[in-house]
């Protein structure tokens, strides 16, 4: 006699998360946009006949769609599209690398503060509070004034002004997770403190960390663009989305296209990461849904 077999397979948490994520169409659109931007800035420059730093004084200020230059040329006759793709490459790289550094610092500080609590926790978290008292942009510019500008310093400075939020998130998570049974069990097995912190507690706090990481990239791209716009970030002739806007204000009347393209790409990238972060938040942990 054939019996109907009940499916005993429960949807895994991962599947549920994926379903919720797909529902969040804007997050999906954000993810696709990021993919396009990454691929475009990685491979786009090889498809163009122009070099991003090639100066052609005779072809200065060519408006978009006039001849070979799709997005026109800038004040030195450089191809705007080529610079845009190289600039996006630099800006996105800074966004990612700064995020990774901020994550590592934030996770370590947060894990130690949350796990040990007491004096260690209090000292570390008061330090976090104190750094958070400085408005990000003020701190970033003051630090930039003390250092030589460039890719490495720009990335490091942005990370230096972004790790505190991660530390707060991780501290709160670790503080509550360390009381849970699996953490107590790990302790009973004789696991070392470091092992419990980074093999048991932090992986269990991955959902909010991932959300923070995504939003962090968005923030880092914004900060880089502002720093470079003011001339304290990436230095010409190398392009970044921010330093392309460096001279745009001067030529706003005669060559507005110089200001439009980089700004649109920055907005697109930042919006995408923000939507992706929001979508991840909904998908990974419905309880964290604040909006």
């Amino acid at each position, binding site marked *: 006699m054939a019996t109907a077999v009940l499916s005993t397979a429960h949807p895994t948490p991962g599947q549920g998360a994926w379903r919720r994520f797909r529902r969040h169409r*804007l997050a999906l659109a954000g993810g696709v946009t990021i993919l396009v931007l990454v691929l475009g800035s990685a491979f786009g420059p090889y498809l163009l006949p122009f070099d991003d730093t090639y100066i052609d004084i005779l072809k200065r200020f060519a408006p978009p769609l006039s001849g070979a230059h799709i997005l026109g040329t800038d004040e030195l006759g450089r191809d705007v599209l080529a610079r845009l793709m190289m600039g996006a490459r630099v800006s996105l790289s800074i966004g990612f690398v700064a995020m990774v550094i901020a994550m590592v610092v934030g996770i370590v500080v947060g894990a130690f503060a949350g796990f040990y609590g007491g004096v260690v926790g209090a000292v570390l978290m*008061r*330090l976090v*509070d*104190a*750094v*958070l*008292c*400085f*408005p*990000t*942009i*003020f*701190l970033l*510019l*003051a*630090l*930039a*004034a*003390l250092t030589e500008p460039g890719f490495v310093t720009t990335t490091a400075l942005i990370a230096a002004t972004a790790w505190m939020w991660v530390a707060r998130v991780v501290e709160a998570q670790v503080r509550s997770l360390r009381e849970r049974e699996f953490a107590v069990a790990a302790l009973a097995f004789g696991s070392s403190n470091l092992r419990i912190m980074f093999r048991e507690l932090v992986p269990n706090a991955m959902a909010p960390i991932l959300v923070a990481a995504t939003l962090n990239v*968005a923030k880092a791209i*914004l900060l880089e*663009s*502002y720093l470079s*716009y*003011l001339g*304290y970030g990436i230095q010409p002739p190398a392009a970044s989305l921010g330093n392309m*806007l460096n001279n*745009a*204000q001067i030529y*706003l*009347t005669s060559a*507005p296209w110089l*200001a*439009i393209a*980089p*700004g649109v790409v*920055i*907005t697109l990238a*930042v*919006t995408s990461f*923000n*939507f992706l972060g*929001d979508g991840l938040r909904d998908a990974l942990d419905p309880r964290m849904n*604040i*909006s």
Partner: protein
Amino acid sequence: MARYVLNRLAQAVMLLVIVSAIGFALLHLAPGGPLSQFAASAQMTQEDLDRVSKQLGLDRPLPIQYLDWFLRMLRGDWGKSYRDGEAVLSVISSHLGATLELMVTATIVAVLLGCWIGILGALRRYSLFDSLATVGAMIALSIPTFWFGLVTIYVFSVTLGWLPAGNRETVGDGSFLDLLHHLIAPALVLGLVETAMWGRFMRSSMLEVINQDYIRTARAKGMPEWRILTVHALRNALLPMITVAGLQFPTLLGGALVAETVFTWPGMGRLFLDSIGYRDYPVVMGILMFSAIMVLIGSLIADILYAVVDPRIRVG
């Protein structure tokens, strides 16, 4: 209540000490340290530098120097600008008015508009208005403020010619209407981000409140909907906004700096950037400390105010 305030004050003082220690450390990290002004000039020999260093007390142990510096800060002696020898604190205060004018105007716009959008969005959750407002807020938060300023200048100053492209007043005019005319663009640019923030927080606060039991009770009693909204829901939903105002303050200050750079607004942010350009470290560090102290006081006021209006806080 007194205990809560005292507790919170003690926390603020402790934070101030750490904040000042960070500021002191940065001052010493500056190229040449506190002596950079003298080190830059070629006529100074190493002996001269050593002598000045001794005069300024820079040969003492760092903790003593820090204590001395901290006490001088408390007395209002923040050092002198390299540029014109003016006292740092008076340079800052002469630029503060313009910044506050910008911040207050943008905040008024943001609070009124943001709260309205947030409340309406919460009441008509998932409606077309709500969806548009949510997406719009996210985009507003993602646009680089300086670029939005550039676009505003291009549209309203260059193309339409309606608004001035920068500065606080027309030289030689300075009437109220002239000031207002100059204020519109920077205040709107700064206000956009703020509006988006307030809208998001207001919406989630309102959503939380309207699902509470006491709202259902009020409805069950047959209370008219407008009364439920204004007397019961809104009063409670607006409370957390005090905290939001405190949390928002650093972002608002940073945004003001950005708006000031694009619109050449003669405020603290503009002064900060000019001072960085001149390597005028005393002013740079002074403004950095000043902004941090403003943030510190802002969050202190927000916390105390919240405890005053919401008795539940004082216990915890």
